[in-house]
């Protein structure tokens, strides 16, 4: 799965996710990536989120929307909200990660697998990429 979240100069957020799904999937199985609110979500009022991992756990926990809701209703920071939402995936037996970017340009990139291909770029063009923790 690949994903991207962006904040433009007009203050608009957007999120996108694309995937081949899970190796050896059967019966037309679909994970969280194409399910709005589970694997992909964006709202200018709070955050843009893209998820990657064991899809069924992201769908059942509505992870992408949960990050926005935690920021909206409980006033959590993007980092607190992302950690809290991802912890529900781990607690229910799933794994994976997510990227989140809020309307001020704060980011969160939590994951609970051995690694996650990830990268970010600041408004000044400072570029960061990483794979392992």
């Amino acid at each position: 799965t690949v994903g991207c979240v962006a904040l433009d100069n007009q203050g608009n957020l957007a999120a996108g996710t694309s995937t081949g799904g899970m190796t050896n999937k059967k019966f037309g199985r679909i994970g969280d990536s194409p399910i709005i609110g589970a694997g992909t979500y964006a709202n200018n009022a709070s955050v843009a989120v893209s998820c990657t991992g064991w899809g069924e756990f992201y769908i059942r926990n509505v992870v992408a929307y949960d990050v926005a809701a935690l920021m909206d209703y409980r006033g959590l920071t993007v980092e607190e909200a992302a950690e809290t939402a991802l912890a529900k995936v781990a607690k229910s037996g799933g794994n994976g990660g997510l990227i989140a970017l809020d309307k001020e340009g704060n980011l969160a990139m939590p994951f609970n697998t051995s690694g996650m291909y990830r990268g970010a770029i600041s408004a000044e063009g400072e570029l960061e990429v990483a794979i392992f923790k």
Partner: protein
Amino acid sequence: KKYVLVIHGGAGTIEPSRMTPELEQAYKAKLKEALTVGYEIIQKDGSALDAVEKTIQVLEDSPLFNAGKGAVFTHEGKNELDAAIMDGESLRAGAVAGVKIVRNPISAARAVMEKSEHVLLARDGAEDFARQVGLTMVDPSYFYTKERWDGLQKALQQEAVQKKANETAVKLGGGHHDDKFG
């Protein structure tokens, strides 16, 4: 620090032993290339939506990631691709699921959002829609990589072993597999 673009290329069991310095370099170079494409759009006052689509296209076109070219294979040896996109300003969203001949599924997701009344279209219907709105269509073999094909063979072998172990469960129409791959 104010960030304007964040990407991920999947989270999974990335074994350090398999990650040669050359492969790590290739992954990092592709992540940087994707970030740069999106950043240039933002710098020119382009929309976050454009930045997301174009950045993901770079990753979909790379065989390194499980999306577009280089996607994993289904039990039947096919590549069935899913994608979604959402616009934070209007709360519009679009998605496609199970498409096999659309080169850039993220663009199909965006077309569903912008050129239809729907949010999610699936399988051959989604492919018909993508073709009607003029997206690039490819032969299914476009998505093939040996590494992913070998990944399927390994999963099938593991499944065969497990099948033998819990014959009864499988007989009950799918049964209960502990293994998430399958």
